[in-house]
């Protein structure tokens, strides 16, 4: 069937004026066969395997984006959680492995490599402990390595000992990069219910249920959704949902087509489409502005959760119809530093940390890219993580915490992280202590929701 002129113009407008893009093509690579009791052999194998498998990722993605006229913004790699192959390596060796990953990423021209990770939602093995201890230095001495730690799942409950440890790790990582506003913390995500095929950073890793190598794709398009809504200022909320659904459908179809072509050209299987709406600091490419367009004077005011729930659900419905294999996180992201609307909400006092927490109940992830005061205690950081983990555990969804306690900065100051990571106003935390809760340690038992067999 031939394509009508207005349809061609619509697609061109989406790309050139409304920031439609493929946010990331992420190649997942299993490193399980690289494990070796001799660290140097393992280190060499890891480097060689990544370089070999992903050698053409960047060039193939660049050729494909030109042919279809839809930009692919990021080319990334996710790998087997490194803790699973560390074995008896030392902390120093784990840091060296992180540097090897960084070197491979730079060599390949990919912007991030994710999977310097550990899954400790029920307990930590020797390799997990080594990885956790190495995290502050591994993240502050590399540029492109991303780390994630799973501390809770609906099935296992919350490992509060790991939650406590993460408070110290985040604090130390921030201190080690205090000259750069604690940037190391921007590459570290603490998860509840992580997914194995997430293409988005910093939380991507190649789960143990995944195959040898796979290509996962994340699309984006808050700007496209925003502009579609602007053309229907008096639609009722059912119609708003329908407009978002139709837009998400088109965005997803574009992403799936391009993802499949890239995968085919690389000779590897296509994994999943992640339907997340991921904002950027580009003008109008903001999730917060979509919520405001739905009918809020400023994001964060009363009604924000309802608008976000509507939007998140509509994106999923449209996307699920458009792709056979939907996975990853698939929902709206609400990072602060990468979304001009969220930044404005905080500066103008409409959006608070508590409201952001509440929003994570109905969107795909959690507290993301939030700058908080540098003098926050490790126990308070742990308690913030525990709250998010509890939301994820009870609601059977992924939640995550990626907060940056910016050394030397106080509430209200603005910090720049640069590039895609953007900038953020520093937020204050509740001044009352959670020390006793965190010091108790142990494991919060899995909830009744886990008993589904």
């Amino acid at each position: 069937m031939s394509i009508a002129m207005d349809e061609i113009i619509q697609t061109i407008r989406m790309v050139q004026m409304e920031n439609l893009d493929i946010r990331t093509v992420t190649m997942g690579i299993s490193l399980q066969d690289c494990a070796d009791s001799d660290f140097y052999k393992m280190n060499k194998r890891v480097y060689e395997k990544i370089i070999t498998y992903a050698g053409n990722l960047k060039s193939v993605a660049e050729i494909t984006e030109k042919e279809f006229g839809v930009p692919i913004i990021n080319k990334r790699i996710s790998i087997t959680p490194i803790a699973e192959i560390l074995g008896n390596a030392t902390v120093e060796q784990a840091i060296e492995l992180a540097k090897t990953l960084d070197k491979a990423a730079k060599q390949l021209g990919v912007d991030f490599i994710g999977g310097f990770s550990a899954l400790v939602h029920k307990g930590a093995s020797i390799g997990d402990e080594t990885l956790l201890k190495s995290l502050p230095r591994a993240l502050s001495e590399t540029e492109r390595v991303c780390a994630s730690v799973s501390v809770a799942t609906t099935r296992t409950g919350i490992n509060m000992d790991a939650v406590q440890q993460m408070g110290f790790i985040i604090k130390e990582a921030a201190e080690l990069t205090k000259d750069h506003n604690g940037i190391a913390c921007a590459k570290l995500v603490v998860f509840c219910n992580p997914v194995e095929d997430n293409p988005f950073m910093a939380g991507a890793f190649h789960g143990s249920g995944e195959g040898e190598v796979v290509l996962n794709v994340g699309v984006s398009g808050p700007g496209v959704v925003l502009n579609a809504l602007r053309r229907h200022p008096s639609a009722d909320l059912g119609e708003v949902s329908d407009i978002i659904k139709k837009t998400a459908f088109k965005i997803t179809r574009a992403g799936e087509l391009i993802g499949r072509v890239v995968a085919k050209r690389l000779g590897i299987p296509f994994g999943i489409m992640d339907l997340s709406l991921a904002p950027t600091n580009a003008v109008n490419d903001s999730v917060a502005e979509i919520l405001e367009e739905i009918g809020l004077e400023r994001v964060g005011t009363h009604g924000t959760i309802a608008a976000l729930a509507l939007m998140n659900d509509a994106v999923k419905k449209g996307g699920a119809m458009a792709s056979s294999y939907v996975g990853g996180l698939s929902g709206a992201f609400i990072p602060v530093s990468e979304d001009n609307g969220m930044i404005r909400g905080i500066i103008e006092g409409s959006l608070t940390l508590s409201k952001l927490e509440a929003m994570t109940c109905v969107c795909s992830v959690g507290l993301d890219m939030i700058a908080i005061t540098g003098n926050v205690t490790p126990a308070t950081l742990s308690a913030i993580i525990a709250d998010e983990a509890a939301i994820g555990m009870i609601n059977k969804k992924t939640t995550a915490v990626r907060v940056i306690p910016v050394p030397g900065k106080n509430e209200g100051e603005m910090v720049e992280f640069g590039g895609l990571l953007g900038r953020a106003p520093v937020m204050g935390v509740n001044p009352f202590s959670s020390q006793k809760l965190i010091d108790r340690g142990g494991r919060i038992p899995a909830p009744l929701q886990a008993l589904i067999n």
Partner: protein
Amino acid sequence: MEKRRAVVSVIGKDKVGIISRVTAVLAENNMNILDINQTILQDFFTMMMIIDISVIDHLNKLRDELELVGEEMDLKINIQLEDIFQAMHRI
């Protein structure tokens, strides 16, 4: 060989000779035009062409030449595989 098609879109301020210059590039590259549609939208010249690209392996040379015409005539010229439009607008 499987039939591959691409969409050439030309948008810009109307002036004499746009179609002539663009189609000349296509003809020089032995490209057959399957469909052509042109209009003036709010003072802007807008043209879409569907071309048969079965005879070439990649669009690089064609894209470079069209971009050159675009720069000279102050037009925005895109060439994209037709599949992207099929994916987005047809089920």
